[in-house]
């Protein structure tokens, strides 16, 4: 997870309008090729118009969910990816919020944020915020959340 994810302008249109738009969405490194996608590596070969493709989440890492030091990116994708990957429900709403706040739309993807603190992430996950309901400790355990929050906070 080094390369910064991008939201193409057309994808931004998808997020806002859910209308037919460029399918060049989610070519960042967290995006597995959508099922049946033709040549995901070749963004240039993608058809010019089309709906946003489904993003397959990483599998939850194997092992004891109460133990620390599991892959936070995989946990994030599995537990938070329902809404927080490209064209997800949470991303779509955050695009609007980020633009309103004068921030670049690609910061709607939480993995692109550089202003999150671990405590803030934990608070939103456990208490919910706006359209996001609180997450239980079965949805994401305390150990998993600690790791994910640290990962999203990038050391803050």
């Amino acid at each position, binding site marked *: 997870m080094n390369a910064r994810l991008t939201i193409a302008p057309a994808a931004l249109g998808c997020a806002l309008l859910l209308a037919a738009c460029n399918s060049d969405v989610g070519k960042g490194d967290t995006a597995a090729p959508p*099922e049946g996608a033709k040549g995901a590596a070749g963004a240039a070969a993608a058809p010019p118009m089309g709906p946003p493709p489904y993003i397959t989440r990483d599998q939850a890492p194997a092992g004891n969910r109460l133990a620390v030091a599991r892959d936070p990116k995989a946990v994030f994708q599995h537990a938070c990816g329902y809404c927080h990957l490209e064209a997800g429900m949470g991303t779509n709403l955050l695009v609007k919020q980020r633009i309103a706040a004068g921030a670049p739309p690609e910061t709607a993807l939480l993995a692109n944020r550089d202003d999150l603190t671990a405590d803030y992430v934990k608070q939103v996950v456990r208490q919910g915020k706006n359209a996001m309901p609180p997450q239980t400790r079965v949805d994401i355990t305390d150990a998993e959340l600690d790791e994910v929050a640290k990962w999203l906070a990038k050391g803050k």
Partner: protein
Amino acid sequence: MELRLPPRVSPEDFQRASDAFAGVVGKDWVLVEDEDRDAYSDAYAPGPKEQWPPSGAVAPGSVEEVQALVRLANEHRIPLWPVSRGKNLGYGTAAPRLPGAMVLDLGRLNKVLDLDPKLAYAVVEPGVSFFDLFDHIAREKAPLWMSVPGNGWGSVLGNALEHGIGYTPYGLHARNLCGMELVTPTGDLVRTGMGAMDGNHAWHLFPFSFGPTWELAMTQSSLGVVTKAGLWLQPEPESSLELSWDIPKEEDIGWVIDTLAPMKISGLIEQNIFIPSWLGKVVLKGQRKDFWDKPGAIPEWRVQELLDQYKLGYWKVQIRLYGDKAVNEAKAAVIKAAMKRHLAAPPEEVWWHAGDSRSAVDTTMGVPSAIPLQMGDWIGGAGSHMGFSPVVPATSEHVLGQLKRSRKIIADHDIDFYASFTIGGRFANNINMLMFDRTQQAEVDNTKKLFDALIAETAKAGYGEYRTHLGWMDPVMATFDFNDHALRRMNEKVKDALDPNGIIAPGKQGVWPAAYRDLAGARA
């Protein structure tokens, strides 16, 4: 949220029970902190979430642990409220009907146990979400499609058990269940259907038992805890064609139903046909204040302006055909000719062929999404919703009658009208989305009054709900009144026989066990 104890349980009793549960699942999976109670309450509740408070939650990791917990719950008299993933948004989320019941969270039982591409079925545990099963099918490269509801965040099994609906040929989700394993309210383990025979090969293929068939008795039910079930899936079609029409006027829904329902009943159209009103499209375009910034329902003149501006009809009809290309073309010709008799504009036609990617936002292709939940943002603030969901015969007479009745009641309460009719066969599910900000007391009070009025007036006209929020389970059950509520009385007799201590989901769907019957809400 502070601890709310189950009825007739002391703090010491509760502590002893929690310790006993921890002995089974480990202390980390007994979730009894204030923050846990918040997380298992109804985040979309009309009013304070303390109205339906859990005492906590316990999360088993195996079927044996479910059995052990159920036995201990009987011993300690702790009522359990089983949830698969607890995402029953708009109907109560994970919260229990009985204050102080403990949520039995089955989310850790999240394995896809079997996937058979040839006979087109899966065997899943309750914690498997629609996304989980979709991802599993993709990884296995199985040529199978699912049917998904609006909220793909939830559980495949939980949604089917709650009579959830989707928009494909497999859209009556409870009908896809075939062969279950369940823990009885006293902790025994039962397999239904052919699975009642040890090692039977047809468990998830033949839909009946030798004798009474129990699968559907386990839906919207408090008679057992389903721990796994077979789920029939749709073989991937060779091609698929979508035909879309914008239907201009409100009253056009009459001819739309009379045109499409016979084709659904005959089998020419296989999918459940979803017909949302215009607001279903506009809620995804922004917030309410972007379109109408005054309190009260958006007036008719402004609705018409919005329809013109966004080139929308009052209703949207999207029909999807699945199968061989030649068959889809032939079916499309029949459907287009029938629609053309009422509407000159041709449909938009979009083909899909095997190997093409599927849209992340198309539920008619069985792709799970949480995007419909974006409507939570429409109202702003703590945007919440409830669904009023009566079932009507699929004819213009009944659909127009229902539309007129509910529209008037909703207009009288000055709330935006957002409805859909889904033709599932000989009937249509009419879902009326009622959106409100749960932090605004006046909005909450108004929505509750509206909900009461909708239930009462709709029942008076001869229609009932197929599903409802926790707070209205008793009133809705009371509308099923034939022969002095004979159905409820039979449900309660069966409940008392199978669950003598009333441990599993007391009050679920208005069925109260003897142990807690005195706590039932409004009863007829």
